[in-house]
């Protein structure tokens, strides 16, 4: 099992760091899956009773100038590690001005993800800083837990307003209630509602746009064609979990989508690209 990757471009390093930092805000421990083409950060939470799960897919070519890996075996050419993203984030944040950053799977006192950076100095010899982040290797028999989740069947999918705006609204609402109702329709309209004994507050968003699911082949299930565009699909969510998602966002996504399914029992999904 081997992994080594090198990031040279400062913008790539910056972006990668922000992704990792976002993830570190969402969860203390997650799984890092390495394949020849991608990196995945996965958290498989207990979704049924209001937990949060997360799936983050990164194409390695977008970040790494060099990337080599050898999985557990030739049929299972993958590596699955349990990491604490906060450690990775901390290590990456301090090396933003590095000339090059190498990530490597090493065996020190225990399996580690080693981040080694060469820092610019005035002298002829570079300053090297290494961070060894301990990881746990996940055995093959547990890999099935970390497969890509299928997109649930949903009724409405909508582009979210700027996340910062949404965060401001949700932050204020959190003071009033623990639960929030999100509703959206196929007309690009979304409302965030809270209701208590004393007061009910609704924030309306218009002209948001709905993603066209028809051409996205990997998704199964799309909005039923016969749906009335004015019809709102509702979902009631725990404000704190929503806030956690919004708080962690550091990556300035170009698109953030929210998809709601008809029954409360089925999870809704928030995706940021």
């Amino acid at each position, binding site marked *: 099992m081997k992994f080594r990757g090198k990031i040279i471009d400062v913008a790539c390093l910056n972006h990668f760091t922000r992704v990792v930092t976002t993830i570190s805000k969402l969860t203390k421990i997650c799984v890092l899956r390495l394949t020849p083409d991608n990196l995945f950060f996965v958290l498989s939470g207990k979704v049924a009773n209001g937990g949060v799960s997360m799936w983050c897919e990164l194409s390695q070519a977008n970040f790494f100038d060099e990337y080599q890996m050898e999985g557990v075996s030739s049929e299972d050419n993958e590596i699955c590690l349990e990491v604490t993203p906060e450690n990775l984030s901390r*290590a990456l944040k301090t090396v933003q001005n590095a000339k090059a950053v190498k990530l490597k799977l090493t065996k020190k006192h225990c399996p580690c993800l080693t981040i080694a950076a060469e820092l610019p100095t005035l002298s002829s010899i570079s300053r090297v800083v290494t961070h060894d982040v301990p990881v746990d290797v996940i055995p093959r028999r547990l890999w099935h837990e970390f497969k890509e989740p299928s997109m649930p069947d949903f009724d409405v999918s909508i582009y979210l307003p700027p996340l910062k705006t949404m965060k401001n609204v949700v932050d204020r609402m959190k003071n009033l209630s623990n639960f929030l109702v999100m509703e959206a329709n196929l007309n690009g309209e979304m409302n965030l509602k809270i209701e208590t004994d004393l007061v009910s507050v609704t924030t309306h968003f218009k002209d948001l746009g709905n993603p066209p699911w028809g051409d996205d082949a990997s998704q199964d299930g799309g909005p039923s064609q016969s749906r009335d565009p004015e019809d709102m699909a509702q979902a009631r969510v725990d404000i704190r979990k929503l806030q956690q998602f919004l708080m962690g966002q550091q990556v300035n996504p170009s698109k953030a989508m929210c998809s709601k399914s008809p029954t409360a029992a089925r999870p809704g999904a928030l995706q940021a690209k």
Partner: protein
Amino acid sequence: MDCVVTGGNVKVLAKAIHSLSRIGDELYVEPQDDGLALRSVNSSRSAYACFLFAPLFFSRYTIPSGHAFRCKMAIKSVQAVFRSLASLEKTVEKCHIGLDEKKNRLTFTLHCKHGLLKTHNLSFQDSESLQAVFDKDSYGNVFRSHPRLLVDTVVHFPPSLEEVTVSVSDERMWVRNHVEEEDRSKSMLTELCLASDEFDHFAVTTQNSVTFCLKELRGMLVFAESTGLPVSMYFDEPGSPLVLSVTDSVLEGNFVLATLSDDSNHRKNNSRREQTPPPPPNDDFMDDDMDSYLIAMDTSIAPGPSATRPPTPPLAVSTYSKQPAAANHRSRLIAEEQEEEEEEEAELADSAGPPNKKFCSLFFGSVLPPSSQTSTQPVTNQEVLASDSEDDEQ
């Protein structure tokens, strides 16, 4: 006592006080003939700092004549006088420090713009003299650099980190976080390697490693970075204190930090050092030989957490105990008790001691006041007691 600090020096004084507040809770003030000494020590006596401001630092410097005056006060109160550094710079023209011995008060008066006067009356307590005895010039390893280098080094370590280990060879300095044996598998290890030519001065007599608290180093850097003065670092064997100092023509700041003493390791070390150390690690970072580079770093130098270390816990004597008397121990703090032999300590090391760190406390020599007071003042016993038990005998 009547001292006046003007202009930019007010900010320097303020920074020094803030820096001292990172060490201990009390500020010891002692106006001396050679300048005003401000000192602080932490509760476990493992860190001590002293700033000496020469008379030239002040625009007026008058000290009580006839008797040596010294006192201590809560450092937070003094910090409150110099609270907002940014506004200090802009508005304060001078700071006057006066003494009212009858009322046991030190008065700090800030003369600000537009005729504004801010007066702070701070009560003090009498205290014995606080003076760590150390001889940094006799230490074997001496380094000097711009504070930026050290600031850039500590930034890689999380703020919560307690201890770092500094290891040196002829050409390099490694700084890594110190992790206890038990926590090894969970914690992140960070290591930074600095080359000798990044320093203004880099002199190594003995290649070894010392472990000390990062918090106090950061405290010193708070001061050094704002003044831009080069920082000098002196250390010797593990167990012997590490001294950081900043100097210029009108002030001198010394931070003395206790280092972890690790006797059994120390002796093993001595024997290892007799063999030729492996060649310095491959410099070319871009070389594919990353693995060997990393491994070389692990084993090339005398003890570090990454090297194989005997599992014996460090010296397990009571906290306020003697320093190990290493044979080639050149400088040691003066202690009143006798120092035990190394063999005796080795036996103690084998006994099960508490698994906490064993920072040797610094020893404070009983510094008798230079004047002829000895007849009237009993010598204060300098067994290092907790601050509460300083029953003042003055």
